């Protein structure tokens, strides 16, 4: 499902002395099945932007089309939009509320008015995707589980709605490296399997470098840069100026080039760096 944003403006507290433009004339297009990384420092407008994509916030002006349908018009069926656009907030585990894991994950589909069979099928599928054993956990209280498990269950609650567009706001914040890698791997697999549109908001440049097709960089409410991670991470100076960074290996390559070593400039993952350095050292031996 595609997203098209035209001249989007969002202002807080309009008409007061505290008026602030959080989204400043953003236009962009996200194609069906694209995996997008949304980066920007705290306060750059990322969260404000994504909350408008499923109608949680109404834009001050501008248009948002989801799958060709303008969702900013009056009287739009928000329930339908939210079924298409699933939004996983930061620290979603704090939003769990039901007595059992099953009830919590089933809450969304139940509100869609689906049959019990269909709900059961969806809950099973969603828990499987996030790596939670259905039989073992379905009757447990979510509050007895670890933080990482609770996070997965909260994500499963959104997945059970089977959204065509999945938006995740820093899904790995506060998780340990293993938990982080597992959740990212699950998102990657899900995207590969269902080819849904995914927007991942992240502060980890290493993670987005490994995962996404395209990056959208926000700064002061504007979309100032977009392109593949390889293209975007070439702009080291720009990114640092706006409070971001590039992956560690990209810094390494820059330092090596400064020392006069002839190595490809556009390296963004450890694997690429490894291959290039091996090639470099072997080439010299010959």
């Amino acid at each position, binding site marked *: 499902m595609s997203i098209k944003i035209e001249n989007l403006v969002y202002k807080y507290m309009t008409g007061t002395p505290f008026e602030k433009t959080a989204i400043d004339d953003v236009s962009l297009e996200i194609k069906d099945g694209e995996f997008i990384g949304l980066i920007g420092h705290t306060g750059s407008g990322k969260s404000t932007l994504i909350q408008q994509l499923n109608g949680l916030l109404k834009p001050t002006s501008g248009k948002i089309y989801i799958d060709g349908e303008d969702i900013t018009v009056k009287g739009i069926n928000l329930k339908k939009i939210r079924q298409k656009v699933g939004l996983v907030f930061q620290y979603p585990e704090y939003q769990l509320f039901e007595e059992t894991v099953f009830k919590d994950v089933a809450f969304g589909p139940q509100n869609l008015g689906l049959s019990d069979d269909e709900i059961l099928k969806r809950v099973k599928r969603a828990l499987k995707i996030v790596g939670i054993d259905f039989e073992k956990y379905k009757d447990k209280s979510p509050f007895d589980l670890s933080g990482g498990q609770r996070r997965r269950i909260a994500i499963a609650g959104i997945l059970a709605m089977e959204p065509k567009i999945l938006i995740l706001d820093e899904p790995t914040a506060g998780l340990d490296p293993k938990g*982080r890698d597992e959740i990212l791997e699950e998102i990657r697999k899900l995207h590969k399997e269902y080819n849904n549109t995914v927007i991942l908001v992240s502060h980890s440049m290493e993670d987005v470098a490994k995962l996404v097709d395209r990056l959208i960089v926000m700064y002061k409410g504007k979309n100032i840069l977009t392109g593949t991670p390889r293209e975007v991470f070439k702009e080291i100076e720009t990114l640092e100026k706006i409070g971001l960074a590039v992956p560690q290996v990209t810094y390494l390559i820059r330092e090596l080039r400064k020392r006069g070593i002839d190595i490809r400039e556009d390296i963004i993952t*450890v694997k690429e760096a490894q291959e290039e*350095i091996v090639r470099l*050292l072997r080439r010299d031996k010959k």
Partner: protein
Amino acid sequence: MLWANNIYFYYKKSDDENSEKGIALKGVNLNIKKGEFVVIIGHNGSGKSTLAKHYNAILIPSSGDVIVDGMNTKDGSKLWNIRQKAGMVFQNPDNQIVATIVEEDVAFGPENLGIPPEKIRKRVDESLSAVNMLDYAHHGPHLLSGGQKQRVAIAGVLAMRPECIILDEPTAMLDPSGRREVIDTIKRLNKEEGITIVLITHFMEEAVEADRVVVMEEGKVVLEGSPRDVFSKVEEIKRLGLDVPEMTELAFELRKSNINIREDILTIEEMVDEICRLK
């Protein structure tokens, strides 16, 4: 300075009287010297936060002793002295700020100690300038960035004139520049003010500059040493569900490709030097 002697910590899994007991710490011995910069890593649920909360008497061990600068945390009469010696900073900056003006927030602690107003003024200004936030003294905290809020939280602890600061994942919610600001502040306080630092983190890059790295697993200390010693055990660290700094990982991968590179590389500079040497 901080002394944990064979501590165990049990907790009840629910309010039910007969519920089974969980065990969060299983005999931890960890002594932290004055002026030391110690990083604790471990996966979620390994007991690191539980341990940290023992060092300023938020939790009291079920058995064993925690001694903070000569005071046993079991001695209730010493509670406020202990909290004043060892301050704590948590993950979420929004949960730690109590006042509506930055300088009032920083003054909250010393006010509660009953310190005279003119001395509070001095402490607040000194604390805010130590974290480079003096320019924001009259701002509302809600208008600050995450990194700035965390620095205000650190200033609030500094105003208590602690000898030790314990930080539980202070950078988990921050963007790259906010993370940098907070880590630089912590390092400066350690180097220049001699404040003992215990930092809990999931970011291995932050552990690189510590004096000592402590690895926790299932309520125990399983590995301990200089960052170089600990992170060179790449396979062991990974088995524990943790990571090594990206440069250590790269060195590890290069060695797999039969490149004879040092295995204990931690930083970009060291990696650059090694590659130039090998070339």
